[in-house]
C-alpha cells in the first residue's frame, strides 16, 4: 500500500506525542539536546506532508479509538493541508530555537523542564489533530487538549501571581469559547439524527435563522481564540506570560487554528452565507485591527506590544475573511478568491514574522531579564544577531516591501478597493472605509515597530550593563534565521505562493487567483489586471539594492575625503545621560494624545515642587469597564439573589421541596384533560 500524506501526518502526530512522553523519561539535559531538534525535524516533515497534500484531493481515515459508536474520523483536504504546512514551517523554526532557549531551564529546573517538553509536544500534536479532525467530537477533543496544554505552558512560571491570573483568564475564555463551539456543532448536527461526523454535517442544511445562530456561536467560539473584539482580553495577558517560544507558537500558530475553524465551519459545513455575516466580520475585524494596533503602539512591555499586535493582525485576517464571505455570498467569486488568498497569505506571513519577533523578544528577555522597554536600549551592539534578524521581522510586520507583510496587506487592500457591485448599496459605500482603516492600521503598525526596534535595539543603554549581555547561541540563530528566511522568501516570491494557495481557494470559493496573478510571468503579481495594479518584489528589491549601492559608491567616489570626528550637537546642554533619550512612553505619547478616547488612561503627573517626582501612566483596556465589569456586577447581583434562597435552615429547604412537589402535583392534575 503506498504511503499517503494523511498516513504521514498521522505518523508525525504520533511521533510528536511519543517524543513528549519520552521527554518525561529522559534526563532533562539529554531531552533538550535530543528531543527539541527531533520535534523540529518532524515539524519540517509535517510542512512537507502539508505541501504534498496541497497538490491532491482529500483523504479520509477512521481510527478505531474514541467512544463506542463514535470513532475518530480523520480527513486531510487542501484547507487542512495549508494549515498543516503553516504549522510545520513555523513550528520547526520555533522548536529549533527552543533547543537553545530552554538550556538554562533544563539545567536548573529539570523536573519543570520535563513537564514542559511533554506539554510542548502535546500542544503541537493537538494543533495538528485539530486540523485533521473530521468529526465534531474529535475536533472538540483536539481543541480542548490544545487549550489545556497551552494553558499549562502559559503558567510555566506559576510562582508569579500575575501569570497565574493571566492563565486563569485564558482558561476561562477558552472554556467560554469551547461551550459556544459545542453548541454550534450541536446546532449543525440537529435533525440529522446521525453522528457528529463532518461528512454528515456537510450535507445537512439549516434554516436561515438556525444557520445564523450557528454562525454567531462559531464566531464567539473561534473569535474567543482569535482575539476578536470584545473577546480579546485574555490575549495580551496570556501571550506575554508564556515562555517566549510558547508565545511564538501561540501567536504564530494557535491563533490560526481559530481561523481554520472559522473557514471550516463557514465554507465547509454551514452552506451558503447570508450577507450580514460578512459585513459583521468585516466590521468587527477592522475594529479589532484598529484597537489592537493602537494598544500596541502605547505598550512599554515588549512582549505585550507584540501580543497586541497579534490582536491587530488577527483583526486584519478576520476582516479579510468577512470580505471573502461578502463577495462569496454575492457570487463574485474572483474577488472572493482574491480576498481569501490575502487572508491565507497573511496568516502564513503572520506566523513567520510574529514568531520571529517573539523569539527575538525572548532572546532579549533571556539575556537581560528585562521586559520593560524603558530599561532597554542599545542592544544592537551586543546582540547583533538578534538585532539583525528582528529587523527583518519588524520590517515585515510594518508591511514594508520587499518583505512578506507588504504582499498580503497589499492583496487585502486590492480586495477592498476592487469592490464589485454588492447587492447592498450601502455596503458599497462603507467598504472603502475598511480600506482606510487598513491603511491607518498599516501606518500605526509601522509606528509601533519603529518604537519596538528603536527603543530596544538602538540608542544608548538605559541602565543596563551592556557588557554583561550575551548574544544568542547557534540553535537560536538557526531558529530565528529560519523564520527570517521565511519572511524574506515569502516576500520575494509571492506569485509562487499564490499558485500554491490556488487549490485552497478553488476548494472554498470555486475560483483561483493563480492563473491571473501569474499571467505576466512569475516575476509579477497581478491580482486582477495589469492596468489596475501589479507588484514585483524582486524588481523592487533589485531597484532598492542598486540605488543603495549606487549612492554608496557615489558618495565614496565624489566625497572630498576630509574627515572630522566630533560629538553630535547637544542642544547646548552638556550634561546628557542615557535616561534623556526618548523613552517608550514618550514615543507613544502622540498616539496617546490623538486617540485618547480609545484608551482608559490614568496618569499621575508630579507637581513642579515635588522633591521626588514620580510619573506614572497606565493605559487600560476600556472594554473591561464597558463589557466585562457590568457582566461581573450582574453575576454578583444574581448570586446574591440565589443566596437569599440559602437560609441554612433544614425546614426551609424541606419547604422548598415540599412546595415544588405540590406545584408539580397541581400541574399534573391541571394539565390532564
Amino acid at each position, binding site marked *: 500500500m503506498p504511503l499517503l500524506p494523511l498516513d504521514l501526518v498521522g505518523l508525525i502526530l504520533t511521533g510528536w506525542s511519543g517524543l513528549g512522553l519520552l521527554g518525561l523519561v529522559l534526563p532533562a539535559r539529554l531531552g533538550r539536546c535530543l528531543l527539541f531538534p527531533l520535534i523540529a525535524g518532524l515539524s519540517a516533515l509535517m510542512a512537507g506532508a502539508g505541501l504534498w497534500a496541497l497538490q491532491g484531493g482529500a483523504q479520509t481515515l477512521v481510527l478505531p479509538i474514541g467512544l463506542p459508536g463514535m470513532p475518530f474520523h480523520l480527513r486531510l483536504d487542501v484547507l487542512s493541508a495549508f494549515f498543516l504546512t503553516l504549522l510545520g514551517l513555523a513550528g520547526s523554526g520555533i522548536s529549533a530555537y527552543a533547543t537553545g532557549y530552554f538550556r538554562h531551564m533544563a539545567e536548573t529546573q529539570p523536573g519543570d523542564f520535563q513537564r514542559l517538553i511533554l506539554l510542548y509536544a502535546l500542544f503541537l500534536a493537538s494543533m495538528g489533530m485539530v486540523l485533521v479532525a473530521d468529526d465534531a467530537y474529535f475536533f472538540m477533543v483536539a481543541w480542548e487538549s490544545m487549550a489545556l496544554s497551552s494553558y499549562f505552558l502559559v503558567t510555566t512560571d506559576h510562582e508569579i501571581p500575575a501569570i497565574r491570573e493571566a492563565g486563569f483568564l485564558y482558561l476561562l475564555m477558552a472554556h467560554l469559547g469551547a461551550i459556544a463551539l459545542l453548541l454550534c456543532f450541536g446546532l449543525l448536527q440537529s435533525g440529522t439524527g446521525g453522528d457528529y461526523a463532518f461528512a454528515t454535517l456537510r450535507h445537512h442544511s439549516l434554516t436561515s435563522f438556525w444557520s445564523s445562530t450557528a454562525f454567531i456561536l462559531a464566531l464567539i467560539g473561534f473569535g474567543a481564540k482569535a482575539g476578536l473584539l470584545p473577546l480579546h482580553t485574555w490575549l495580551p495577558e496570556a501571550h506575554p506570560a508564556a515562555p517566549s517560544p510558547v508565545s511564538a507558537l501561540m501567536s504564530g500558530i494557535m491563533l490560526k487554528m481559530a481561523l481554520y475553524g472559522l473557514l471550516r465551519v463557514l465554507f465547509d459545513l454551514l452552506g451558503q452565507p447570508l450577507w450580514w455575516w460578512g459585513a459583521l466580520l468585516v466590521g468587527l475585524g477592522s475594529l479589532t485591527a484598529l484597537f489592537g494596533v493602537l494598544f500596541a503602539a502605547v505598550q512599554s512591555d515588549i512582549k505585550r506590544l507584540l501580543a497586541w499586535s497579534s490582536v491587530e493582525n488577527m483583526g486584519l485576517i478576520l476582516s479579510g475573511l468577512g470580505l471573502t464571505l461578502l463577495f462569496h455570498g454575492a457570487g463574485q467569486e474572483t474577488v472572493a478568491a482574491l480576498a481569501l488568498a490575502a487572508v491565507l497569505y497573511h496568516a502564513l506571513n503572520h506566523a513567520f514574522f510574529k514568531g520571529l519577533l517573539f523569539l527575538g523578544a525572548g532572546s532579549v528577555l533571556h539575556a537581560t531579564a528585562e521586559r520593560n522597554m524603558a530599561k532597554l536600549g542599545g542592544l544592537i551592539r551586543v546582540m547583533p544577531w538578534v538585532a539583525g534578524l528582528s529587523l527583518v521581522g519588524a520590517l515585515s510586520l510594518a508591511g514594508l516591501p520587499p518583505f512578506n507583510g507588504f504582499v498580503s496587506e497589499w492583496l487585502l487592500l486590492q480586495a477592498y478597493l476592487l469592490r464589485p457591485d454588492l447587492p447592498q448599496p450601502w455596503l458599497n459605500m462603507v467598504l472603502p472605509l475598511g480600506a482606510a482603516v487598513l491603511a491607518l492600521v498599516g501606518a500605526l503598525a509601522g509606528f509601533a515597530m519603529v518604537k519596538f526596534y528603536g527603543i530596544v535595539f538602538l540608542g544608548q543603554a538605559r541602565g543596563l550593563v551592556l557588557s554583561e549581555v550575551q548574544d544568542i547561541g547557534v540553535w537560536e540563530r538557526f531558529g530565528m534565521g529560519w523564520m527570517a528566511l521565511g519572511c524574506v522568501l515569502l516576500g520575494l516570491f509571492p506569485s509562487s505562493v499564490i499558485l500554491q494557495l490556488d487549490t485552497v481557494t478553488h476548494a472554498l470559493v470555486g475560483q483561483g487567483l493563480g492563473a491571473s496573478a501569474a499571467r505576466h510571468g512569475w516575476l509579477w503579481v497581478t491580482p486582477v489586471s495589469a492596468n489596475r495594479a501589479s507588484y514585483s518584489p524582486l524588481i523592487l528589491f533589485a531597484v532598492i539594492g542598486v540605488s543603495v549601492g549606487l549612492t554608496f559608491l557615489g558618495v565614496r567616489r565624489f566625497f572630498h575625503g576630509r574627515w572630522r570626528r566630533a560629538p553630535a550637537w547637544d542642544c547646548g546642554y552638556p550634561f546628557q545621560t542615557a535616561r534623556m533619550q526618548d523613552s517608550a512612553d514618550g514615543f507613544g505619547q502622540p498616539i496617546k494624545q490623538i486617540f485618547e478616547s480609545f484608551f482608559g488612561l490614568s496618569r499621575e503627573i508630579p507637581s513642579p515642587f515635588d522633591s521626588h517626582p514620580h510619573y506614572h501612566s497606565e493605559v487600560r483596556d476600556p472594554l473591561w469597564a464597558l463589557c466585562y465589569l457590568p457582566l461581573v456586577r450582574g453575576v454578583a447581583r444574581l448570586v446574591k439573589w440565589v443566596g437569599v434562597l*440559602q*437560609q*441554612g*435552615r*433544614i*425546614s426551609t429547604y*424541606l*419547604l422548598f421541596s*415540599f412546595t415544588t*412537589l*405540590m406545584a408539580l*402535583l*397541581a400541574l*399534573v*392534575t391541571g394539565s*390532564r384533560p
Partner: protein
Amino acid sequence: MSHWNPAPFAQQLLDLFASLLLLIAFAMLSQRRILTLIHLFAWQGLILTLSIADSAWLTHQPHLYYSAALTLIIKVLILPLLLHRLIRRLDVVWDVETLINIPTTMLVGIGLVVFSFNLALPISHFSSTILRNTLGIALASVLLSFMMMITRRKAVPQVIGFLALENGLFLAATSATYGMPMVVELGVALDVLVGMFIFGIFFFQIRETFDSLDIRHMEKLKEE
C-alpha cells in the same frame, strides 16, 4: 343467605385501616412528645401491615404477604426499638416546640388532605385495583409527614417524619399497583434501615458538635 361473602367486609376493613392511618398521621402532626411519636409510628406500621395483609388475602397475591411481614419486622419492631434506644441514650424525651403552632398546622393539614383527595380522584379512575379509594389517603399521609418534617425543630422528630413519609409511600404503592416488585420493596426496606443507622450516628455527631439536637444551630454552617 346461602353463602357469606367475605369481600365486602374485607373491603370495609381496608377503608377502616386507611382512615386509621390518616388519623394517626394527624396525631403525629399534633404530637409534641417524642416518645408518643415513636409509639404512634409503631401503630402506623402495624396498621399498614394489617392493611397490606388484608389486601393480600382479598386479592390472593401471595407476595403481598411478604411485604406485610417485612413491614411488621422493620417498621413495627426494629425501627421503634432503635428509636427508643436512641432517645434514651440521647436523653431527649421531650419535643419542646414546633415552628408553627399546632392548630395552624392542623388547618394546613386539612388543606393538604383536600388537595390530595382532589389529586387522587382522577388517578383512581384509571386504576383497577380494589385499593384505589385509599390512594388519596396515602398521598395525604405522605404530604402530612412531609409537613411534619418541615414544622419540627429537633432532629429526631424530623427523622420520624421521614420514616412516616416512607409508610405513606408504601401505602400509595400498594393501593395503586398492588405493591412494588419484591426487589424494590426489599431495597427500600434496607434503605430505611441503613438510613436509620446513619441518622443515629448523625444525631450523636450533631449533639457532640452543638451540645444540642436543635437544628437551628446548623444555620451557622451557612456561608455569610
